[in-house]
């Protein structure tokens, strides 16, 4: 006890504390600064005259009003929300079924299916823009929100399957067997035992799918050529190319796009991290 008490007062200990404090300040500062800069530009009445000043000139919501109502971002937000929600619902359902198959059944080619799921994540989707564009063009799916949803399913599925697999595996098999013993059939067991228990994983995975769809840019840029079908990303780029120096409005639009994602991320951070490592190391 005596050594601990004296250690607390020792200069080395103080140095460690100061070092930790500085580390925390550095992490918080670096991580949050670009976000702060975006927010503070968005509310600054005169962002171009701000120079090197860390604080905005004043506070205005004019930039937000301008991008939402004059520049059509309300419409883009609606398009993005529809696409993202449809992607989330379909990919959650499909991925859950697939993850149950690979986590709960032992069958021939199981390992191969898992490797396939892992490998397709490595296909650069940017490389598939050309064939998918031609395909969508033939099927008249350009400028359609449904076409974009279909493509985003392909993006979110491999990760969703891989991630959910960890959560399904974590559910004790005995619980399922108990349900069978009580006379439940497979679907009954699925809905009343497995589904409630993997819901946290499903939420984390869904948030991930949502963000994938919400953030996606290159396919939205290629597929959506009519202004009325723009998602937020394409809308922002078009707006930027037409109003290059209007940084207040560009940052206001960026804020509107980024805030939902940031909120989702911070909400599910714990689950997300555990899901990622489960997907990575669980056998």
């Amino acid at each position, binding site marked *: 006890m005596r050594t601990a008490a004296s250690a607390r007062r020792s200069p080395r200990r103080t140095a460690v504390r100061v070092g930790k404090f500085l*580390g*925390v300040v550095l*992490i*918080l500062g670096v*991580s*949050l600064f*670009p*976000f702060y800069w*975006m927010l503070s530009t968005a509310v600054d009445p005169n962002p171009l005259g701000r*120079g*090197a000043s860390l604080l905005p000139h004043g506070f205005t919501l004019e930039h937000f009003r301008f991008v939402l109502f004059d520049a059509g971002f309300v419409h883009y937000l609606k398009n993005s929300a529809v696409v993202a929600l449809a992607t989330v619902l379909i990919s959650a359902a*499909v991925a859950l*079924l*697939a993850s*149950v198959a*690979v986590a709960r*059944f032992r*069958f021939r080619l199981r*390992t191969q299916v898992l*490797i*396939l*799921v892992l490998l*397709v994540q*490595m*296909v*650069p989707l*940017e*490389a*598939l*823009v050309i*064939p*998918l*564009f*031609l*395909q969508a063009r033939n099927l008249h799916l350009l400028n359609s929100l449904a076409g974009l949803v279909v493509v985003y*399913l*392909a993006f979110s599925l491999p990760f969703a399957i891989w991630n959910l697999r960890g959560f399904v595996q974590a559910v004790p098999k005995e619980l399922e067997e108990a349900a*069978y*013993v009580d006379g439940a*059939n497979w679907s009954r067991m699925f809905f009343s035992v497995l589904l409630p228990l993997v819901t946290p994983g499903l939420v984390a995975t869904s948030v991930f799918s949502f963000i994938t769809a919400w953030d996606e*840019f*290159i396919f939205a840029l290629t597929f959506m050529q009519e202004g009325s079908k723009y998602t*937020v*990303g394409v809308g*922002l*780029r078009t707006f930027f190319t037409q109003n290059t120096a209007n940084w207040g409005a*560009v940052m206001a639009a*960026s804020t509107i*796009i*980024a805030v939902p*994602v*940031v909120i989702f*991320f*911070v909400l599910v*951070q714990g689950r997300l*991290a555990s899901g*990622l*490592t489960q997907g*990575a*190391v669980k056998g």
Partner: protein
Amino acid sequence: MTVGTEAPSPPATAPARRRVPVRRRLTRGAAPWVLLAPALILLAVLLLWPLVRVVMLSLQDYRLRNLIRGDSNYVGLENFTKVLTSDFLWSTVLPNTVGFAVVCVVLTMLVGIVVALFLNTLGRAWRSICTAAIMVAWAVPAITGTYVFVWLFDPLNGLVANTLDALGIMEAGSWNWFDDRWAFYAIATANVVYHGFPFIAVTVLAGLGTVPRELYEAAALDGAGAVTRFRSVTVPGIRPILAVCIILSTIWDFKVFTQIYLMPGGDGTNRSVMNLGVWSYSESFAQGLYGMGSAIAVLLTVLLLVISVVYMRTLMKEDEL
């Protein structure tokens, strides 16, 4: 609790298994495939078939007119010879792609691991606060994050130019760094590392929690210093996680598109800053040379697959899958 013969849970003993009727055995064999079917069909139609298609397109001189007529125009390996013998690939595009990816992966891993090790020493409350903060950096979409960096580095009105101006280092507006290949990629690197390090930090931090504390205590008893403890306890303990992190960030950083495309001149107008992704895109959608664009896309894919396979062979063990 009586276990009847009807219990569908697979009996453990071999004689019991033989009694399961053929029909049920078939259903049980088919069940995983029924569950997998929607996912596999979607992946096949949306990932595998386009992958085949892009290879087919890369062997054609496929232009806008072929697109309209719907015919094919095979020319063999002509696109590949053109790409691979072009000076532009070797002097500009490949260095931009590979150099940028290597720098980004190294920096992202270093920053991520250092942050994770640091967070691991903090108390619960501060760790949560810092994790939430770096989550914000991770969460900001690539599109908006890139515009924030472009704005920060705006040559005339941006924060960086004006700070340098105030310090008397350079006059704001005197130099457009987006025109310079090195400055352009320095800004892009900052953007990509800023966006990428939180994933590494959070994942490694979670991994650090799985390393048994007793190992550290034992190592400390053996007189191991902090560096030795890190090298011989931490690194082996989180090796699978580090492997996954390296593989994923390499893949991400090789195919960076949005963060380059949205920077001034990055959409193909400034050819000196093109990378493979942007080159492929602009050949196809700006020039209408879909065959040529596909050939470049195939090269990018092959490059990524080779890297992934080599990584998985060297970094991951079979049983870790």
